[in-house]
């Protein structure tokens, strides 16, 4: 046990001092801050834009003029009411004879508009003429206003009391209360967690393979195995890299939460959906860390063997290809199941040990996962980890002293069946 902690301590210390670790941590933290503050930045830009236009219009007193041609007297005395509803415009009554010169004016002056009222089957209509649709006042808001005048007028004529008339005109207010987890917000959180877990597990698993391979390349291995048991080396080293990953993950999550608290605007929407991170509960936090540890252990054990099969550090990537394939397939299975977190694919992928670490935590964020599924998933993972660790330690002991040609899968199988 002492040997295990010695290996763990040394590996952790040496790797945390490496430039690659320090730089990658710094970059990850900066990216985290940037990504999480994007909503705040967007909102800030929006506000600046609005400020600019508001400032522009008030400073230059350059109110747009809306020319109104109302030959049928539809709004009659209500023209000044328009001024109060749309304070940023000045409404000016005109006659139909001027229509062409008015149109020319509107075409020239960006802020001006022309409003022509008419009547069809006793119901008011209007033509709204602007240089570019989308700018100027909102026609649907105008339409509502006209309707209000029209209806009030009708009701008055039918001798309906003001009271009833007011009630008829009022909008029915409504509120949407979500009882379950919001779809878009949890989808976003799940996606981020799924990707983060994949990245950290993959990156630090790769670190284990590199570390083993470099010990072979530098020939330290021979000294190591005469100093302590191979199982202690493989376990201590994997634990150290895992701890390093956990530290980095912790730093990223803390920075993320802090940035979120400091900069995230209230009621920020993506595609009309509220975006918040309320699906992160203490339970989901614990499960994320737990699945990181399990998933990492699984891939670290396999990567250690891959690292032990090569003689040169340059060959690590090709030795890792089968494992990369498994992890990427696992990740995609988990990722695709995000859209249907209660579907069969999602359930299966969160129980298969190789995809569970990428799938289960995001499902837990997205939906209520039945306890039996979590139990089955954890159980399957632990059994697989123990089995793979057992095989890995066996192969590792034989593979580390092998130099020369890269060991093939059949060589490894032969090694794993030999006694040692």
């Amino acid at each position, binding site marked *: 046990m002492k040997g295990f902690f010695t290996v763990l301590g040394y590996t952790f210390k040496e790797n945390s001092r490496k430039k690659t670790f320090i730089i990658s941590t710094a970059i990850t933290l900066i990216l985290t801050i940037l990504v999480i503050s994007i909503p705040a930045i967007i909102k800030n830009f929006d506000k600046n834009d609005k400020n600019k236009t508001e400032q522009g219009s008030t400073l230059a007193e350059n109110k747009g003029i809306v020319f109104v041609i109302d030959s049928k007297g539809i709004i009659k005395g209500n023209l000044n009411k328009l001024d109060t509803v749309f304070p940023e415009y000045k409404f000016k009554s005109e006659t139909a004879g001027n229509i062409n010169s008015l149109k020319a004016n509107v075409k020239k002056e960006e802020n001006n508009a022309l409003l022509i009222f008419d009547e069809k089957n006793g119901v008011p209509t209007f033509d709204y003429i602007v240089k570019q649709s989308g700018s100027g006042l909102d026609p649907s808001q105008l339409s509502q206003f006209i309707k209000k005048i029209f209806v009030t007028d009708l009701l008055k004529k039918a001798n309906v009391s003001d009271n009833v008339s007011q009630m008829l005109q009022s909008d029915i207010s409504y509120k949407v209360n979500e009882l379950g987890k919001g779809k878009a917000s949890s989808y976003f959180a799940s996606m981020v967690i799924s990707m983060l877990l994949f990245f950290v597990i993959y990156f630090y698993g790769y670190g284990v393979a590199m570390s083993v391979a470099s010990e072979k390349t*530098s020939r330290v291995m*021979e*000294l190591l195995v*005469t100093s*302590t*048991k191979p199982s202690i080396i493989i376990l201590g080293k994997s634990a150290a890299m895992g701890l390093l990953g956990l530290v980095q993950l912790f730093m990223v999550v803390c920075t993320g939460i802090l940035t979120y608290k400091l900069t995230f605007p209230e009621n920020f929407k993506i595609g009309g959906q509220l975006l918040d991170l309320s699906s992160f509960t203490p339970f989901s936090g614990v499960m994320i860390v737990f699945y990181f540890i399990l998933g990492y252990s699984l891939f670290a054990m396999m990567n250690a063997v891959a690292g032990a099969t090569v003689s040169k550090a340059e060959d690590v990537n090709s030795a890792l290809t089968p494992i990369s394939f498994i992890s990427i397939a696992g990740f995609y299975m988990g990722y695709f199941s995000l859209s249907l977190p209660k579907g069969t694919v999602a359930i299966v992928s969160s129980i298969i040990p190789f995809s569970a670490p990428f799938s289960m935590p995001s499902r837990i964020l997205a939906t209520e996962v039945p306890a039996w599924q979590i139990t089955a998933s954890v159980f399957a993972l632990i059994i697989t980890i123990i089995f793979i660790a057992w095989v890995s330690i066996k192969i590792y002991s034989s593979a580390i002293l092998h130099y020369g040609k890269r060991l093939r899968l059949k060589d490894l199988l032969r090694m794993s069946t030999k006694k040692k």
Partner: protein
Amino acid sequence: MALNVSSVIKKFGDKIALDNISFKIEKPGVFGLLGTNGAGKTTTIRMILGILEKDAGAISWNGNPVTRESVKFGYLPEERGLYPKAKIVDQLSYFGKLRGMDGTSVKKAINYWFDRLKVSEYSNSTAEQLSKGNQQKIQLITALLHDPELIVLDEPLSGLDPVNADLFKSVIYELVEKGKFIIMSSHHMESIEDYCEDLIILKNGKTVLNGNLKQIKAGYGRTNLTLNTQDDIDLLIKEQAITLISKNATGYELKIKSDDQAYSLLEKIIASKIRLDKFEIREPSLHEIFIEKVGE
């Protein structure tokens, strides 16, 4: 205390790497493990240290199987290995701790060996910043740090300048005086001859010679004659029917059947008024024995 290697066999696939190797090291001192490249020296060492499994036979220390736990051993592998980017002092203390030392004793031992091998100034350097000779010194420290009882040195002197080679030799003498069991593998016959009392010579995984060096030499008898002269005495040698082994700038190496043969040659040389710098009848050197045994 004794190391006993008996009837050890190791195969790599169809190739027999070690074929029924047996030897004993019964008293402290340096035991020579010799052989050509690929003779099976490193394989033997790895099996003694328990990092390679043997296919048959037994290796024991004081009657018990050799394991990391039962024997404190130190190992200087032929392929030197240090962490290139780690500080010297850090990796030394790592190896010390892996072998069960505590923080204080490891520090003390590191300081002792830094002074002894004159490398204190490199304590905070990384391995890759060190010269080859200094790396070798650090490597020797990793082998000796924990005061092992059984020490395996694989080519300890290769790549060292004469000053450092002497420093290493003095350390090895010191270890012998402290009563350590040392297995030394080397192609450097003179140094083996300096230390070794017993040795084994391997060829293609088989033992070709095993035993006490003095006895082996005595068995050959005084069959070598060294003659140093500036003159040409080829004809005289031929007349005496003496076998010429080699001729070089300083003189002749000859093989004789008896002392008489040598003395009659000496008489002829003096009669011919040829000047002689050296005349020595001696046992064959280890180098010569080695060449004879594994050379063909």
